[in-house]
């Protein structure tokens, strides 16, 4: 709302700073408004630039950025960039409706999080953890280190790229992504990758040590003689069926433990 002739412009350095300040975005989770302080923290330098000379505007800006907030941190910079662009307009015009800033933020954070959670928690972390585990199980310290790299290279790249996408293209970027069907293809690709890794882990990282012998032949050899690791797949299939039937996860877990205890007591596991 500054009426002075000097236009307040967002520079490249400002956007870089958004990236850096998004790193500790998660530091102050609270029940009441979740990541609201982290959100405001990231915007502090830019708000000072826009409203540093106007205490009343600063108060309003801080208040609107301390509202409830929670967005998947890895893609948060997109929304930061977009909101910075809106704040820039507000700072340079007399009659900008600041309610639209709040409503855009609130409207976008949920849906952007659905995308971010699916890609980062649903796929990238699964791949990172499975590669990490398979090495760590052999006692190889590269496991944890690779885990960290596989997860965080995309994490930092996404944060870096998305600031300027959010600032320069904003909603236009989302519209073009939706129109092009790129999001569907991205989901398709990441779920292929994720599912292949899960399939691999079903073969390697489940162990059902069945010890049931008929006429000197161990049943497990018969089953796994048809297809290697078939028993693992069958066990996974039955658990998957229970999960699909919405049986409570805690009950399934207890069930498996009871199965383990009974099985080892009778001597078949």
């Amino acid at each position: 709302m500054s009426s002075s002739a000097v236009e307040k412009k967002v520079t490249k350095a400002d956007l870089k700073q958004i990236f850096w300040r998004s790193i500790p975005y998660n530091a102050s989770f609270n029940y009441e408004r979740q990541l609201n302080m982290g959100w405001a923290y990231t915007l502090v330098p830019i708000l000072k630039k826009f409203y540093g000379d106007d205490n009343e505007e600063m108060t309003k800006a801080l208040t609107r950025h301390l509202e409830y907030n929670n967005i998947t941190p890895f893609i948060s910079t997109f929304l930061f960039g977009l909101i910075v662009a809106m704040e820039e307009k507000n700072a340079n015009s007399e009659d900008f409706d600041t309610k639209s800033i709040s409503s855009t933020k609130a409207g976008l954070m949920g849906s952007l999080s659905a995308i971010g959670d699916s890609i980062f928690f649903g796929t990238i972390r699964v791949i990172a953890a499975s590669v990490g585990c398979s090495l760590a199980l052999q006692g190889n310290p590269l496991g944890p280190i690779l885990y960290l790299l596989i997860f965080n290279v995309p994490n930092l790249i996404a944060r870096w790229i998305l600031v300027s996408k959010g600032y320069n293209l904003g909603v236009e970027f989302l519209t073009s992504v939706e129109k092009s069907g790129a999001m569907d293809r991205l989901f398709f690709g990441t779920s292929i990758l994720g599912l292949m890794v899960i399939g691999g882990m079903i073969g390697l990282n489940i162990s059902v040590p069945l010890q049931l012998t008929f006429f000197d032949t161990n049943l497990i050899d018969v089953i796994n003689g048809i297809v290697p690791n078939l028993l693992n797949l069958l066990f996974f299939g039955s658990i998957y069926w229970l999960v699909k039937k919405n049986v409570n996860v805690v009950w399934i877990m207890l069930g498996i433990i009871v199965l383990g205890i009974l099985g080892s007591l009778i001597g078949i596991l």
Partner: protein
Amino acid sequence: MEVTVMQAVGIGLVALFAYMVDFCAYAQWDRPIFTCLLVGLVLGDVPQALVLGANLELLYMGTMSIGAALPPDIYTGGILGVAFAIATGTGIEGAVTLCLPIASLALVVKQFFYTFFRGYCTHRADYYASIGNADGVAKMHILSLLMWVPMAILVGFAFYAGSAAVQTILDSIPEFIMNGISVASGMIPALGFAMLAKLTVTQKTLPFLFLGFAFVSYLGVDVTGVAIFGLIIAVLAVYFSKPNPAAATAEVEDDDNEF
């Protein structure tokens, strides 16, 4: 194994570092698969710690913190579970048995800090906002991290003071139960995998799960190999599934905002 003060301090520092993940890009280094390496370094048994951490990670891989729901604190559970299992020499059974109870207890403690300390910070931040003090708001954000100091001290102290008690508890569990838990810990990962698969499986993508399975079962590829093949196949599949115009129109019709 007798726990020394230095080791307890070390475990406390591992916990403090793990909690700082919130400050550092939410880099996911608080998960058992990473903290086990640090616990192993502190206790001088990296190979065993890696195996324990990997096992816990496989067990809890399917648990995610999506949005606001707070699951049991398997981060603290992972650190102390691995540490106690090494200190008491109880191996995987010990780590698996201990992780979840510790995680549930840690969540209660964490909730206490979240409610009172973080509640205080939030309201202080509101006050600073009301007087237009941006630096004050930023300060409250950073101050919030302070709650991890007492948490980390508690973890170190629990490790120092708790080992003997944990040993007694684990010793008092009948052997057949511990055997059973050991057997079960090989099977529980199936649950995590099932939960993860359920998120992404569609008719179109189900074959890829079997493809990954076939790679390891018939070709003896390891998981890293599957990930590399998977990446190539995913890129190819995405490339060749570029929407053709006909499909695109069908999509548009399907996407209208009507029942």
